[in-house]
Structures are given as C-alpha cells and as structure tokens.
C-alpha cells in the first residue's frame, strides 16, 4: 500500500511537472509569436520609413554633389574670365603704348644724324645736310627692326606722324627741329643696332650721303604720352 502511494506520487509529480512545463512553454511561445506579430506591422512601418529616409538621403547627397560640381565649374569659368580679362587689359596696355596713348620707358638706342661738318667749296651744300628721307630711312629701319616707340629730338613719332623737309629744318607734325637730329628708339638694343649697321644698310647709305651718324646704346629712355 505504501509503495503504491509512492508510485502514484511519482506519476503525479511527473504529470505536474509536465503540465506546468508545457504550459510555460506554450505561453512563452505564444508570447513570442504574439509579440512578433504585433511588432511586425510596426517593424515594417519603421523599415519603410528607414528606406524612405535613406532614399531621400541618397537623393540629397546626389544633389549636393551636383551643386558642388556646378560651383566648381562656375568658379573655373570665373577664373578663366579673369584670365581673359587680364590678357585683354595687358593687350590694351601694350596697344596703348604702341599708339602713344601711354608713356613708354625702356632701353634702346639713339642715332644722331648731323650735317657734315666739312663742305667743299665747289659742291652744293644741299648734298651735305640731313634730309627728311634720311630720317625716313632710319625710322623705317628701326620700326622694321622691332622698335616699340621712336622719338626725334624728344618729339614722339606716331603711326600717322609726318616728317618733311622745310628748308634747313625738318618739320615733324608741325614742329620744326634743326640739325642735329637725335632719333631715339625703345626696343631690343642688340637687334636695333645690328639692323642699322648691316652692310649696305642704313648707316652705310647715310655715310655715303655725307651724313654724320653716331649710334649709341641708351638705357632708360622715357617717352611721354600723346598730349591730346
């Protein structure tokens, strides 16, 4: 009788254990499933939101990159425009210097043409003085040798200047100058000198025409701008 009770007690014990255990097990399982089911919509919703946000982020980042690119190109354009402007200003300055609207200074040469000091009695004096054609020769030679600016006795020569003989003096743009004539030219000293001294060149011609020629290099020649 005692052992019978013990066996019953054992079976009851096992039964109780199994009952509560399975009860707990199913409860926890239900909880889990319920939770996940409840969370599912929320989870889905949040995920959707996250995806939307990330999409938006990506879009905005793309936009940002595009804008940065645009800014860069615009800056580049600005820099290019500035460069072009600078070039144009430089060019304008150079041109102004060339046509005489600005004063010019620099190294160059000075050619002095004077009438021959010795005139034989039997010859005509006209053969021994400096004529406008001599000056033309020198000026043309200087220009073709690359002179930037030329002046005669301090009077600057422009593109439309006139040099002509008026009796014993030479008129340059209406101003008369007596001999000797100092023709100053700004440019590459070596080139100017060499081109003047070419064989059968300008200087040789002048000497044959009984003109006294003195050629010297000068530095820091100043020429003023046109006065008008």
């Amino acid at each position, binding site marked *: 009788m005692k*052992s*019978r*009770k*013990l*066996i*019953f*007690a*054992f*079976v*009851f*014990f*096992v*039964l*109780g*254990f*199994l*009952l*509560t*255990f*399975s*009860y*707990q*097990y199913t409860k*926890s*399982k239900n909880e889990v499933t319920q939770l996940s089911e409840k969370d599912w919509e929320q989870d889905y919703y949040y995920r959707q939101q996250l995806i939307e946000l990330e999409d938006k982020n990506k879009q905005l980042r793309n936009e940002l990159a595009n804008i940065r690119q645009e800014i860069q190109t615009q800056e580049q354009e600005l820099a290019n425009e500035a460069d072009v402007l600078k070039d144009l200003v430089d060019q304008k300055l150079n041109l102004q210097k060339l046509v005489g609207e600005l004063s010019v200074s620099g190294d160059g040469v000075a050619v002095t043409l004077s009438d021959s000091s010795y005139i034989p009695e039997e010859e005509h004096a006209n053969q021994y003085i400096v004529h406008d054609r001599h000056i033309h020769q020198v000026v043309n030679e200087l220009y073709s040798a690359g002179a930037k600016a030329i002046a005669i006795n301090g009077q600057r020569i422009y593109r439309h200047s006139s040099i002509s003989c008026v009796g014993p003096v030479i008129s340059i743009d209406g101003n008369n100058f007596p001999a000797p004539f100092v023709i100053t030219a700004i440019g590459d000293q070596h080139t100017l000198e060499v081109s003047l001294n070419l064989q059968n060149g300008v200087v040789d011609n002048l000497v044959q025409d009984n003109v006294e020629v003195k050629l010297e290099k000068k530095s820091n020649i100043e020429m003023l701008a046109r006065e008008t």
Partner: protein
Amino acid sequence: MWLPALFLVLGLILGFLTNITIPDIYANYLSIAVLAALDTLFGGIRAQLEDKFDQKVFITGFFFNVSLAAFLAFLGVQLGIDLYLAAIFAFGVRLFQNLAIIRRLLLEKYRFIKK
C-alpha cells in the same frame, strides 16, 4: 492521499521553476509525454477502483507507452508524416474510456454507499 497531492504540487512548482526552452521540433514529444502521463494516471486510478492494480503493469505501462509514443513521433519526423497524431489519438481515446469507467465505478460506489 497526502503524498500524491504533495508530489503533484512539487511537480507543478518544479515545472514553473524550470526555465528551459526546448526547440520547436520537440514540442510534439512534450505533448505526447503529457498525454502518456495522464493516461497512465487515469489507468492507475481505474485499476485502483477495480481493485486490479498491479505495480509492475502500472510502471511498465507508463514507460512503455511513453517510449512507443516518442518513437512514433520520431519516426513521423523522419518520414515527414505526423505519426505522433496516432499516439495522441490512442492516448485520447483511452483517456476518455478510462474516465468513463472511473465515473461509472464512482457512481456505483456512491449508490452502494447510499443504499
């Protein structure tokens, strides 16, 4: 009758205290174990009331039933067929039969006492 009740309470408490989570595939075995325990219990009570109680039959029946049910469930899992349903069905039918017999026996006893 105090000892079985005490052990039942003990088992319940122990079941509450154990916090083991078992994998889903063993849930079938758990249900079968519960049914086997119930079946054995009611079988034992019925035998008691019929004065045919045999300890050896009781104990061996408990373990043999449980192991057979577990084997069926295992086979079912292996074959992909819900064979554990057969065990559940058998246990359920026997449970109701036992309960009916216990009820009749108790009613007869009650009548007998009344007379």
